[in-house]
């Protein structure tokens, strides 16, 4: 078992007051087979009414809106989480969703060819192979892609950030009929959120981090949320009325205790 102190902080500033600012946040660690929350706190700007709930994929969400016009929205999510070996049993739920291409993980003929694996391998062996393949194919290059870049474009350019690595590996897995999903979370020593992949072997979900060529994640990853691709589980999403320009400052720390 490992214990971590996490701290996720965001400050959104608007160039002028905006009205009806609505938000949806997935900033709290998931509660699952390998993660237990020992303590947690979320503090957000006053004048926002926030409620708790779960989304379509079983993630914890905080959602709500500002009661009056705002020029800043700030929140902190902090606490202590303890983790065991990264394994997640599947109970109920719908695996089918993670088996077919989603908006950001569409596949084309060239990708199918690049994703071909030896049919005698098990799903986990295939995923290991694909994780490795994505790592070797890609070059880590920030600011070459955006949050909306689909896997096919990532494949053509062969560069990007953790989100792009994850999308490409997911597309490859699904091309092999292996259910795979996108995960958002914290990784020690990065200072920002990280994205990786979970693969279903028929019984359990296991973690793979193609950005770091890490097959079968054991420890050190704190999971926030998952979805078919990144669009399903952003840490925060907001909408407002007004013409303001928005600036976002994010600060993440994860420290082993």
């Amino acid at each position, binding site marked *: 078992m490992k214990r971590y102190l996490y701290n996720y902080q965001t400050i959104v500033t608007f160039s002028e007051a905006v009205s*009806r600012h*609505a938000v*949806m946040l997935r900033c709290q660690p998931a509660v699952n087979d390998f993660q237990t929350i020992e303590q947690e706190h979320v503090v957000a700007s006053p004048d926002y*009414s926030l*409620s708790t*709930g779960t*989304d*379509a*994929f079983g993630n914890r969400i905080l*959602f*709500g*809106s500002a*009661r009056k016009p705002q020029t800043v929205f700030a929140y902190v999510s902090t606490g202590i989480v303890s983790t065991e070996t990264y394994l997640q049993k599947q109970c109920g739920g*719908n695996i*089918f*969703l993670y088996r*077919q291409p989603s908006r950001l993980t569409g596949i084309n003929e060239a990708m199918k060819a690049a994703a071909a694996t030896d049919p005698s391998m098990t799903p986990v062996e295939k995923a290991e192979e694909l994780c490795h393949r994505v790592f070797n194919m890609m070059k880590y290059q920030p600011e070459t892609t955006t949050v909306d870049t689909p896997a096919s474009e990532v494949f053509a350019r062969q560069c990007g950030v953790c989100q792009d690595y994850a999308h490409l590996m997911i597309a490859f897995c699904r091309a092999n009929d292996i259910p795979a999903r996108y995960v958002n979370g914290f990784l020690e020593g990065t200072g920002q959120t990280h994205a990786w992949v979970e693969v279903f072997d028929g019984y359990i979900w296991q973690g793979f981090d193609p950005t770091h060529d890490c097959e079968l994640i054991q420890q050190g990853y704190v999971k926030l949320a998952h979805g078919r691709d990144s*669009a399903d589980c952003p840490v925060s*999403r907001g*909408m407002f*009325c007004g013409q303001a320009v928005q600036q976002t400052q994010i600060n993440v720390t994860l420290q082993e205790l």
Partner: protein
Amino acid sequence: MSIKIKELTESRNTVNKWMERYGVRFGVYKNGVFNEQLFPFDPVPRIIWKDDWDYLEQGLRQRVKALNRFLWDIYHDKEIITDGIVPEEFVYSSKGYLPECEQISPTGGVYAHIAGIDLVEGKDGQWYVLEDNLRIPSGASYPMIAREITRRVSPSTFTTHAVAENRDYADLLRDMMDEMNDNRGISVILTPGRYNSAYFEHSYLAEKTGATLVYPGELFVEDNIVYYTGINKERTRVGCIYRRVSDEYMDPMIFEASSLLGIPNVMQAYKAGNVALVNAPGNGVADDKGIYYFVPKMVEYYLDEKPILQNAPTYLPYFKEDYDFVLKNIRRLVVKDVSEAGGYGVVFGKDLQEDELEKLKSLIIEQPRRWIAQEVIDFKDLEILEGNEFVERKADLRAFVISGKETKVWRSGLTRFSRNPDSFVVNSSQGGGFKDTWVVKN
């Protein structure tokens, strides 16, 4: 018994002129330009005798009940999948299936509050269901206003014939909205705005039901409650939203993020039971072309009854038996791409060249799940007045079924006809026209 139509045909121009004045139009986008067109009205009504109607009514009620049960099941326990009636890939790979609707229980268990069921009458006198429209079926306002105007222009027609009243559609709609609202607040009709193709209908139904016509930006969620803010900036709680905005634009927080038509976090308020959405989001999974095949099976499965209305004979290449049949008889069938909406991806085997036919076959072999094939139904022509002459044209019927606490069928419907003598396409955007539909006592 016959219907005297002389007075009606003479009144045609007057009625059409009145409709023009009332702004009975629909909008069409062509090459990115928005144009409004009049919807040509044919004065000769489609007559359905009461006995035939009673049969249709029973069948429609049964079908819509089963579809509502199916939607509940799909978003809850999925028994119809576990029991092997509908294969899971037909459900989950449907574009209309929304995981965001899982485990949400709409008021009264109703999903398809307003169902538009498209039927045709075959030359054999049998009725066939061609399509179920369970998302935002439109068109009821046209026969409503046509009747209203015709009654004024030619009142005696309605004293000599026992035509079932159709101006009660607004009552059916209002009662249903009241039941769904459950005194939580006001009922509203949410329109995307005047550039929507059915804007006339939105404003007309609002006027007739007494619901408030609201525009994007006038609704917002606070403390998980939906409010309407009117011109005076006061806030009023909303209990029921008859929304004419499609699912993917309803809530930018979980669906299409760039949507300006939606209401941020409305899905959370809906999930919490603080507002009713009419129709429920996620209904697209039940009116999918692939799911259509299973509707008669749903009737047997959920209601334990024999289906009263029949589908057009349909084959799913997904099943081995149908696969062989389709490849062998493709020339006489109409093949539809399940993933395409509207009139797109529909191919008549008889229209194809040899090489095109082979190509279609290879597509079916490659992805059998993606296609359905149907027998071409030779449907009955209806008489329409073209100039001063009666001609025969293809026509269909959209029947409207309203489900609140009970399921009721509106005793009228939208009869659309094709103006082109060789066409089977009755879609209004293709220049077709419409007729009033009369249910008449024998």
